[in-house]
């Protein structure tokens, strides 16, 4: 009976430990910085328009085809207030289909889409499934109202185009190049910043746009 006694002893010891239950929703655990919620769009507060230009790279790379994007001419560019020639016109992301694989964030040339690492990014109960198709306003809402906090913006390996939003001079050309479909490249390194591959991630992230992981 020793084995049974050992089992009973194990449960008794466990009974006197502190329970591990977190009483959601009155208490919520702290989500890690890199936590992946559903994607949201970012708002450029300086230029007062979305970062997204509607280039459709994310829609092309989405494995489940949940993104629909159209682009239009940017009226602010005609007025000389913004460097973006094109701007997103309609952006639909079906949260019911999205599998949070993070590929749209990886391939975005303008760092315009991030995964929502707050609780609003995952608390998405709806009564009707069609309410989960988010449009552009819904996707921009959280960042515009300042509730997004600090999204995860680590430069991501090879798929990142390397376009750095602070390099304003090169911004235009990189945006134009990236907006066109990529031609097949011969065997030579592409526009990915070679430093990001060779150095510590700490050094690379100092160069990246927002804070990101320190």
């Amino acid at each position, binding site marked *: *009976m*020793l*084995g*049974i006694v050992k*089992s*009973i002893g*194990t*449960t*008794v010891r*466990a*009974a006197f*430990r*502190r*329970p*591990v*239950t977190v*009483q959601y929703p009155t208490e919520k655990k702290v989500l890690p910085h890199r936590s992946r919620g559903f994607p949201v769009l970012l708002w450029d507060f300086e230029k007062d328009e979305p970062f997204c230009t509607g280039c459709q790279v994310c829609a092309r790379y989405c494995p489940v085809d949940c993104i629909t994007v159209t682009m239009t001419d940017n009226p602010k560019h005609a007025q000389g207030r913004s460097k973006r020639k094109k701007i997103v016109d309609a952006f639909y992301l079906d949260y019911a289909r999205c599998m949070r694989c993070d590929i749209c964030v990886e391939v975005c040339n303008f760092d315009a889409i991030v995964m929502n690492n707050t609780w609003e990014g995952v608390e998405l109960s709806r009564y009707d499934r069609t309410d989960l198709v988010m449009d552009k306003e819904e996707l921009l809402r959280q960042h515009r109202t300042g509730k997004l906090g600090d999204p995860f913006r680590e430069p991501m390996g090879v798929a990142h185009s390397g376009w750095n939003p602070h390099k304003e001079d090169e911004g235009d050309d990189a945006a134009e190049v990236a907006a066109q479909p990529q031609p097949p490249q011969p065997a030579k390194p592409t526009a990915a910043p070679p430093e990001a591959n060779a150095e510590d991630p700490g050094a690379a992230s100092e160069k990246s746009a927002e804070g990101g992981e320190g």
Partner: protein
Amino acid sequence: MLLAISSNPWLDALVRLGIVALLLPVGVIWLTWLERKVIGRLQQRLGPMRVGPYGLLQGIADTIKLITKEDVRPVTADRWVFELAPFVIVVPVIMALAALPFTAEILVRNMALGLFYIVAVTGLSIVGMVMAGWGSDNKYALLGAVRAGAQLISYEVPLILTAVAVAMLAQSMNLQAIVGAQHDTPFIAYQPLGFIVFSIATLAELYRQPFDIPVAESEVVGGATVEYSGIRWSMFQLGEFASLVLFSVLGSLIFLGGWTWPLDPDGLDGSIQALLMVVKVAMFIIFFMWMRGSLPRLRIDQLMALCWQVLLPFTLLQIMINGLVLAYDWPDWTLTALSGAGAAAMIFVVYQAARREGVPLAPSAGPQRVGSVL
């Protein structure tokens, strides 16, 4: 001795029985909450916390939900057998509660053959389980019912024989007399073997781990009760928890000294008696719930082997020891010594049987692997 609620004995009995019938569902609801809390603590979690403070109203919420459910009955089910089965399980338990004294004064009726009556009446629940399994027209239910019938019939025997052993010591089957006979030492000190057998047999009677294969949740998904929903299913739960209360109180009365030990029986206040009983019954109930959360289940043939090859011989040994001590008027400590030796022997036998290597059999050929202690 009976605090008459009314001078008319029939009215008095009706009122008392009514009180029992009213308090029973409330007690069962509270016990379901307690079980979920205890098992939650064993699993390092909290249990119900939302409904009411610390989840105390969870049982009421469950009952409301169950009452408002649709009464589903399979079309091909044998109608009267299906619908009467829950009653055949619950009514004998309430009948048994009618003869069970909780303290010297909190009782319905005390009978001279109280112990005999209780163990006889609880045996009727087996019929209910088999009715439920047969009436459901479902192979899982049939499997569960057949297992339940086999298990319950088998484990009645050691249970009854341990009760007989206690009656031998107390020279009476009157439960109040049995409690009176334990005024200086409880019978657990004289009959450790009987106590262990009683606990194991009660676990089997209540379909609790490690003997819950008739209602195995992960195999036959509820066994005989799989087709029941709503208030009919909650009658099964009522029967199960009422049996839990019944056997816990019975065990406290016949082994742990009832409402008097360890205090002096004369001049004990009714409330102190009740408090002692509550403590002892709580010990039993917590023990049963603790076993439920800690042990996996035995297979049906291993369970039957345990009963017929281990529990029954040792129970008969216990009766023989009692008989010898009483007939030859040996001192009381011989009873403890012999019974303790019997208990140690039983534990040793089970230990050996479980750890025995056995002969590895070639799969899908040769004799089947049947549980056996020998």
